[in-house]
């Protein structure tokens, strides 16, 4: 069956770093596309959708509980322990799912770049460039990824938040009213899309084993969730204030919002700048998913090292990204509809099932907590 491969990830991260990279993983794409999909349903109440969608971040809690039971192991490792050969199959499913999800992210990124900025550049080149850079980061290991995330995304978020505040010259606060005109149902329907991104907090199942301060992990996870709620709410609000009823019209509302910023007539045309900021965020997000796919495959196969896999998986990802959807409309439609069942099945329901079975069968991890070798 499965020989103990031990920990093939040598790096260790702090709980705060884990919170940051999960936060980036949650808001990465949504930040630019917020509130486009939600606005179709929730109208001017989109700023409430992150709050509703955050229910899905229960996936983080499930991952935490599972990790408490199997300290120092990722889901790829403990799933076979719980369910034997069937669990091995489930572990494979996770690997496939994260490759698939990562392909969405790469696809979104490529669609924005080729659709808005570089219309003549072949998408494969855009995707390939990004996947290669991420592959290099993944080769460097988990510490490299979180360090570069810290280094790149914190300033980027600061700049984006500043821009959101700067857009206040264009704000029309009355766009917000009347609040909850059609009750809470449209808001819940609008929360479907953001909830998919929130359910990705389950990625913690791959990061928790390498967190140094296990006792702080839960608290930092909560901080991360609250942070992403606040972030998305801020950008949703600025979109409502600036675009009003046009929030649902544009695919990249934040981009349109910031394009309208004009400070004293000289601080204009900041769209390319916005893309540069967002690029660092999306880089971190793709890195995280790619890392999970690479680590997962290495653990599933029982390899002693995952680094050699980063490049081949990058190529697989580019290919999958091209195949993943025939058009951007299709992708958006999926992530605003059926996608919610898919993501929640994999990231909430199955993990809960694993937890339940582990409880019933009294399966426990072998390692002592904290004695990560």
């Amino acid at each position, binding site marked *: 069956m499965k020989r103990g491969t031990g920990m093939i990830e040598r790096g260790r991260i702090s709980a705060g770093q884990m919170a940051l990279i999960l936060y980036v993983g949650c808001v990465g794409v949504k930040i630019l596309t917020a509130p486009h999909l939600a606005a179709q349903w929730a109208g001017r109440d989109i700023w409430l959708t992150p709050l509703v969608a955050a229910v899905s971040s229960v996936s983080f809690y499930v991952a935490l509980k599972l990790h408490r039971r199997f300290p120092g192991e990722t889901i790829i490792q403990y799933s076979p322990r719980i369910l034997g050969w069937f669990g091995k199959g489930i572990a494979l499913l996770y690997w496939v799912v994260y490759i698939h999800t990562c392909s969405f992210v790469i696809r979104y990124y490529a669609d924005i770049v080729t659709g808005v900025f*570089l219309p003549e*550049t*072949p998408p494969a080149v855009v995707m*390939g460039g990004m996947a*290669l*850079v991420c592959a*290099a980061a993944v080769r460097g290991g988990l510490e490299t990824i979180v360090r570069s995330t810290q280094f790149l995304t914190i300033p980027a978020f600061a700049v984006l938040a500043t821009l959101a505040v700067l857009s206040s010259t264009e704000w029309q606060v009355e766009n917000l009213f*009347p609040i909850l005109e059609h009750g809470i149902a449209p808001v819940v329907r609008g929360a479907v899309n953001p909830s998919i991104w929130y359910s990705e907090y389950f990625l913690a199942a791959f990061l928790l084993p390498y967190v140094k301060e296990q006792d702080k992990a839960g608290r930092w996870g909560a901080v991360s969730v609250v942070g992403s709620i606040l972030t998305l709410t801020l950008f949703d609000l600025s979109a409502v204030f600036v675009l009003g*009823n046009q929030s649902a019209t544009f695919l990249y509302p934040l981009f349109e919002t910031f*394009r309208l910023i004009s400070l004293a007539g000289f601080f204009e045309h900041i769209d390319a700048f916005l893309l540069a900021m967002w690029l660092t965020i999306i880089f971190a997000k793709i890195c995280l998913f790619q890392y999970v796919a690479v680590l997962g495959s290495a653990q599933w196969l029982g390899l002693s090292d995952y680094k050699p896999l980063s490049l081949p998986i990058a190529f697989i990802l580019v290919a999958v990204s091209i195949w993943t959807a025939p058009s951007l409309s299709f992708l958006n439609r999926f992530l605003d509809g059926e996608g919610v069942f898919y993501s929640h099945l994999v990231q909430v329901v199955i993990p809960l099932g694993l937890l339940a079975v582990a409880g019933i069968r009294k399966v426990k991890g072998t390692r002592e907590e904290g004695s990560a070798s």
Partner: protein
Amino acid sequence: MRAGRMKKAGKRALCLLLMVSLPILPGCWDRMELNEIALIRSLGVDRTEDGQFEVTILQAIPLRVGTEGGGGGGKQQMVLSAQGVTIPEAISKLQQKMGRRIFTGHQEVIVFGKRLAKTGIREALDYISRHPGFRKDAFVFVTKVSPKEIFETVAPGETTSTETLYKMVKLERTVNKTIMRVLQEVSGDAEAADIPVVMKMNDTTLALDGTAVFREDKMMDHLDRKAAEGLLWIRNEFTTRIVNTRLQGEKGYVSMEVVRSEIELIPKIEGKKQRIILKVTSEGDVRLNGTRLSLYHPSDVDRIARAMERSIRDRIRRTVDQVQQKARADILGFARAFHREYPKEWTKMKDRWNEQVFPRLDVDIQVRVHIRRPGVTNQQAGLPKEKVKDR
């Protein structure tokens, strides 16, 4: 040892790979050099008599330092038109006429011709908002002549006619209508928008000529300058405004400059009847006193204020009446006020708002004027004291 060397070789290969990928990352396919693109400053859309779209572009030609002249127009700008069944087709025809690539990233003005405005601007709006290359904060105008004529009217001293239009908006601040705002209004509660009208005075002068009123996406009416002025009061969009008035039993005018103004829309539904109260509160300073009144007495100042109120009320009334009766398009923001105040009733009124509810709406205009200062003199400047009217 060998493993170490392998690792080194791998690192080297990776470095090489990254270096090789560097030239493809900055987006070589889309590199744009300034001398390969045509900087479009304005876009004009109109319909021809046979129903085709006519698209006009104004290309700015950045002058090299040292070329002589250029004030006569035509040197620093180029105006081109093309026709097509759809707007993109017309644009691609334009592209075929030009050596450079059309680049709209710095486009600031969009002008709709009258025929297009009458038949509907929806397609033009869709094209502009769908295309990533167009800025959504370009200013929109409507013109009675063709956009081409507007573009060819270059004021002396300006490089292009776009400059003139752009500065007009920036100075007046009253006709600040961007594509984004038009989109919001056309798809808003009232489904009505107003777009400033630009006209050609003579070969070198452009002027603003009131406002075109749109219901849905079609132009319904043209408010002239005087009628459009009430809009500024209702929207509270102005920098400085002068109000003139005459007092009963007095010769001469009194002018006031409004420095602050607030407007409140208070919708009321009483049974079956809908009313709306327009509450205007303005503050201002006297700028001219052509009468013989001294402004020493507060009571005289109050008399002037009452007269000012009347004159403001009349202005607003004129606008409201014309918009209600002729255009039947709610560009005054009443729909929003009702929607916000009475969301339940609004859903019932929504569909017949412009046709039935809005034209019959009782509009109650209440104006309060506070004259804060008489200027820097309260006497009659240029009159001996004996001739000043004293009570």
